[in-house]
């Protein structure tokens, strides 16, 4: 018998191994995590909905499967926290918005089906910025999530709930989505690992669309190997998604088990430093570069001048696609309906419903997107942003002719206090400065912890960027860096987080 405080500290790989060997049952593991949620989530607020009965039923099914001697999935019995942007049959899905409060989808997203096929136990749905628009989880209609390192600070956004859940040991694994950095940025500020796979690697079917050419689901975990195991469980071609890649999933688990940077060429992007970067973030990043050299990598500087325009291009493209995607929330077929008193037209009811159901950030982006796409401005704004996108993609291609991967800080600063940037959208948008170019080009990237900033004692993230379809390189480099850091610190970084 292993006690609950030990169980919740286990990695996903350890949990799966212990369940497979019979040392633990899936029900014991699930109950331990549900007890942890009961104990700490009132303070953290990582979850919007805990599916206690559903999780225990899934866990019992895993235990019965094992008892019958059936083959178990690679993550059998491992609990997972799911960003509330994926539809879950019979379980509420709100996307952090009042617009879908109380909505119970009649179908599962493909990613959810894949998780169930891997025998993962889904504990519940995690808090997020409304419709994944934000960099702090303060835009959730259900209140903010706290950062487990300091509950008065943001846990990153938009997937702050998912990263906070794994950082506070409420779940060993979580799922996020990354449109401009919403997996990597929360990972960086909570001291966890987050991966944005190559665009199209993980199905978008059943994932509520924000900006369709940028949105990408991916794994959140406490270790690089755990992220790889989850990556392999959710990736793959889906005929229900026309943006899904029909190609084999790269061998990410094998790469995570054989971490190495010896003989690799690694590029440092000249544009990812300078004004706006916190001194402690730059210091930890510079140390990471020295570490890569000591592990046998050759490090060179690469120049990507158009990256300076990436944030601008993103804040035209993402709102444009959002204004189009969110047109479906019209109060007619599902979700909220407001102002339908029998005298108003459908058009008026739609406008009143959208006023009542959407929060400020969503409204701001709908207006901005409508502007960027409107007649007379289309070429100047949306068209130019799409040209920037071409130039950024070319610069990545040129860089990857010289190097195997690129590295940078994941975020320019550590977690900022809740409320600090609430009234200043441009200051908020800067949090995604280093992550956005990858979304525009569609390639793969990872964030993993590289230490604490000396000035505030908060986690700093190291970003690794790989070419499209070369996601395994992230895991090879990430595993080597992680092993070296854990050896240097004597323990995983997360163990330094103040107890909740």
């Amino acid at each position, binding site marked *: 018998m292993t006690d609950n405080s030990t169980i919740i500290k286990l990695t996903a790989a350890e949990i799966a191994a212990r369940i497979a060997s019979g040392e633990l049952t899936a029900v014991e593991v699930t109950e331990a995590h549900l007890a942890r949620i009961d104990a700490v989530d009132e303070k953290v607020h990582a979850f919007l909905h805990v599916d206690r009965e559903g999780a225990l039923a899934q866990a019992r099914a895993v235990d019965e499967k094992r008892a019958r001697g059936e083959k178990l999935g690679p993550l059998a019995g491992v609990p997972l926290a799911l960003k509330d942007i994926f539809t879950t049959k019979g379980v509420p899905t709100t996307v952090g918005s009042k617009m879908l409060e109380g909505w119970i989808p009649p179908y599962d997203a493909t990613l959810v089906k894949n998780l169930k096929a891997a025998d993962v136990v889904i504990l519940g749905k995690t808090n997020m910025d409304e419709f994944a628009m934000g960099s702090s989880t303060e835009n959730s209609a259900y209140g903010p999530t706290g950062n487990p390192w300091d509950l008065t600070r943001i846990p990153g956004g938009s997937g702050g709930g998912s990263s906070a859940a794994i950082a506070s040991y409420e779940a060993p694994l979580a799922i996020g989505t990354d449109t401009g950095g919403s997996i990597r940025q929360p990972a960086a500020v909570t001291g966890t690992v987050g991966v944005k796979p190559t665009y199209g690697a993980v199905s978008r079917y059943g994932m509520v669309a924000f900006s369709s050419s940028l949105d990408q689901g991916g794994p959140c975990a406490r270790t690089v190997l755990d992220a790889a195991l989850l990556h392999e469980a959710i990736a793959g071609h889906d005929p229900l998604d026309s943006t899904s890649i029909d190609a084999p999933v790269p061998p990410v688990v094998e790469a995570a088990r054989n971490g190495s940077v010896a003989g690799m060429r690694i590029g440092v992007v000249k544009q990812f430093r300078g004004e706006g970067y916190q001194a402690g973030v730059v210091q930890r990043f510079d140390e990471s570069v020295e570490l890569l050299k000591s592990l046998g990598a050759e490090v060179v500087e690469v120049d990507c001048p158009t990256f300076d325009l990436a944030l601008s291009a993103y804040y035209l493209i993402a709102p444009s696609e959002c204004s189009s995607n969110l047109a479906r929330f019209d109060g007619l077929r599902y979700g909220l309906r407001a102002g339908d008193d029998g005298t108003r037209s*459908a058009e008026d009811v739609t406008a009143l419903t*959208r006023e009542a159901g959407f929060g400020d950030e969503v409204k701001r982006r709908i*207006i901005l997107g409508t502007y960027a796409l409107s007649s007379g401005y289309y070429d100047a704004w949306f068209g130019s942003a799409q*040209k920037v996108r071409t130039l950024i993609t070319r610069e990545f291609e040129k860089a990857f002719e010289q190097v195997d991967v690129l590295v940078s800080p994941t975020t320019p600063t550590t977690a900022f206090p809740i409320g600090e940037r609430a009234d200043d*959208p441009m200051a908020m948008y800067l949090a995604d400065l280093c992550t956005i170019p990858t979304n525009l080009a569609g390639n793969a990237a990872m964030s993993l912890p590289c230490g604490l900033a000396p000035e505030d004692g908060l986690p700093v993230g190291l970003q690794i960027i790989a070419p499209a379809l070369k996601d395994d390189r992230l895991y090879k480099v990430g595993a080597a860096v992680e092993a070296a850091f854990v050896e240097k610190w004597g323990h995983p970084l997360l163990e330094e987080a103040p107890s909740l």
Partner: protein
Amino acid sequence: MPGITREEVAHLARLARLELKSEELDHFAGQLDDIIGAVARVSEVADQDVPPTSHPLPLTNVMRADEVRPSLTPDQALSGAPAQEQQRFKVPQILGED
């Protein structure tokens, strides 16, 4: 580049079927003006002979065979509807009286 006025925000809100309150119009006009000012640098590439990228992948339409397959039942499809009648979505009036 032009700034964005309160009247323009009101016009855009109408286009976007969004009934904004008066104070929201003032609030957003100021913020959107700041944002547009900050992102205006994309216009630096406007006259360059660069093809636009709309999507990181070449997209092809996905077709399936035209055959009857299981799907949601009417009750499932209507399960999230704000209002329903006789197994149909019930919506406010679409056409005016005139």
